[in-house]
């Protein structure tokens, strides 16, 4: 399963980056989204997979029933998910604004300030 998920991560990263190299701003945003899925899944997989028990401790116990999933990668991913949601929201607003100002979705048109 680790190998399978590692490949899935590779695919998500590859497709995300490919989308970011396109000229459409919208594809850029989609690429970003794919990329963050890839990163989340990467942390999840690299942190060690455990099938089954979530890291919850039953009432009255002090330890969760084994085997339990490593809680730390989950916390990291939760943070990462929320952060990337914020960044994505801003990016989309930025793209919205960019289309408004420049009248195009083509990134290659955005070179006026560098020439």
């Amino acid at each position, binding site marked *: *399963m680790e190998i399978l*998920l590692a490949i899935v991560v590779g695919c998500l990263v590859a497709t995300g980056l490919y989308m970011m190299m396109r*000229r*459409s701003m919208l594809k850029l945003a*989609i690429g970003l989204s*794919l990329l963050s899925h890839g990163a989340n899944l990467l942390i999840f997989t*690299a942190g060690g997979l455990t099938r089954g028990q979530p890291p919850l401790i039953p009432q009255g116990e002090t330890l969760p029933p084994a085997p339990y999933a490593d809680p730390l990668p989950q*916390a990291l991913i939760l943070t990462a998910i929320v952060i990337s949601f914020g960044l994505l929201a801003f990016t989309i607003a*930025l793209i919205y604004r960019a289309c408004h100002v420049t009248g195009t979705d083509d990134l290659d048109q955005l070179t006026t300030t560098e020439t």
Partner: protein
Amino acid sequence: MDLLVAVLAPLAVAPLMPLVRRFAGRHVGDVAAAIPLAIAVYFARYVGTLGDGQSVAFRRAWVPEIGLSLSLRLDGLSLLFVLLISGIGALVCVYAGGYLAGNRRLGSFFGSLLAFMTAMLGIVLAENLLTLYVFWEFTTLTSFLLISFEHERQAARAAAMQALLTTAAGGLCLLAGVILLGLIGGSFEITELIERGDAVRAHRLYPAAVILILLGAFTKSAQFPFHYWLPNAMAAPTPVSAYLHSATMVKAGVYLLARLSPLLGGTDLWTVTVTGVGAVTMVVGTVLAFTSYDMKGILAYLTINVLGTLTMLIGLGTELAAEAAMIYLLAHALYKGALFLVTGAVDHAAHSRDLRELSGLRHRMPLTALIAALAALSMAGVVPFFGFLAKESYLHAVVEAPRMWPLLTFAAVVASVLVVAGAGLVAVAPFFGTLSEKADRAHEAGFRLWFVPALLAVAGLAAGLLPQTLAAPLVEPAVAAIVGEPVPLELKLWHGVTLPLVLSVIALAAGVALYVSHERVRSVFDGTRVLGGWGPAAWYDKGVTLLDVVAHWQTGFLQSGFLRTYVTVILAMTAGLAGLMITHFGLTFVERETIGVRWHEGIAAGLIVAAAFVAVRSTSRMRAVVALTIVGFGVSWIFVLFGGPDLAMTQIVVETLTTLLFVFAFYRLPKFSILSDRATRFRDAVLASSVGIVMTLLILLATGVDQYEPTSEYYVRSSVTEAHGRNIVNVILVDFRALDTLGEITVLSAAAVGVFVMVRLVAPKGGRS
């Protein structure tokens, strides 16, 4: 401490000069002159006390750990230069007050001039090589300001830039050389280094240090082939030319060579290079003088000649040569200063410096003509002027040179002939002959404009008549400082009939003859423009142009403005470096027990991949977004399967909201279209895949390591007992690692503000609101 005060005094006063101008009005130059005059008087009391190699020192740590300290030392050599700088400085201030009278930037002019004076004093008093460099660069900058004083003129700005780049490049070479020297010798203090001279000269890096230091000295002193900037620097106001480009700054290189010759001199490398470059410069300077019709230009070339001569003498390294160098230095300062200032007076009066437009000026400016004649006689080396003594002593040194003497003597005589003729060009040609149109309108310039050159010219005569009284006390300690031991000096005009005297007389006669026929031989000299016009000067221009072209090309190439190029380069760098590391170090996958794949897990994984590819391939925006949502749900399914209910929940909600965002954006944005060609898409796909593969490999590597207990075990153990919570993930978020969460909600808040700003803030069109 006194030394430091003396060095910094001009700089300290410099910022006040605009204010002084407001109050002193026409006398601003005279007020400014008070400072160098005070310095000259202060240092004059050391005359006669430093003959035996004594010195006065001051030292203050700056960054001692890297050898940077502000240390100054006054010895005979320094003293000679200090008196030149301050003495001529005072005169130039007075002169400039008259020359530039009425100029509205006179205040800042004197500010720059005084700042320059500090820089020069610093160079010649520096004991620490890094301190010397500090002041060295400061002369470069202040001279930049002074050359481009008339900065409305493009030519002045270009000349200033040329001088800046050339001398700053040399300065940086000097810095590198100096640091090397310091590292070799274990100190940056000149006296300490001289004590360790043998070890320094034997060091492996000695040649590198010498070459770098020489580059610095040669550029500053306008030695061939770096001489091109000096004539162009004549764009400066004439007092500046007289001061910087004749009497002081260009001599800084000569000073440095003299100062370091006990340390670096004596080796073949040093002697051959310094003597050779000096000799070539000596000849080139005089030859080029005849390609110019501008009086200032001619003087500039003749100054190059003198700088070459001085360099050559120092390179020789004999006691005689050191003597000659110091005598010549003094003589030159007096007569060349006077001639420059005379030129300024002519320019001021006749509004021209062009020999083709000027003749017969003596009818309108008799006084000036007399002064010019006095100075020129000294320059030509006529008895009883001080210049005669100088010429004789340097011919003497050359004749007695330990090696190459025939060659050097020949060069020296040729140069002398040309100098004599050159003296005629600037002192005879404009003043004699029939009155030209421009000259006719001229009149004697104001008091300051003739009085100051007159002082210098008369001083040249006086020093020649009474050399032992007036010149020896200055020259003797300086020579002692170069040679390293007291040298008794006997200066007199008549040594009997010696070879140098014969050569001197021959040079004089030939020079007069050449001057008489100079109109006819000019065409011969014009052929030598190669050396001045499109020779090394053109290298500079070509160099700058080439630099611009290269810079334009590389910047346009790298910073193309296309985002996807940037992304491509970054990914290529990532994949390339990672690939390099992987191929270089290999990969070791540790066999570890892995979890098998159940069928529904396989489906989840397949779904994610399939949906991701649909999102890429889709030509419909809506389909792409739906596919993206499916990827998100697929990922949360994986989270559920492997024990992450919190994750899954959050992921699903976020995914839903994200979809909403996308849908919103899609209402406004244009449809997808394929904008790139097939080859680009292929290249991008390869690049993206290789980064993907790197990620896959990294995960497999990481999961193979099972060496340490993860820190999360602590969280599991303490979650209930210490943190009072049973949902460990949540406890981590709000307690164990709450600081992360604090940062995270900050990100979210800023993002919310950002969205609001992007959508709402409409910049007011024109006009301040």
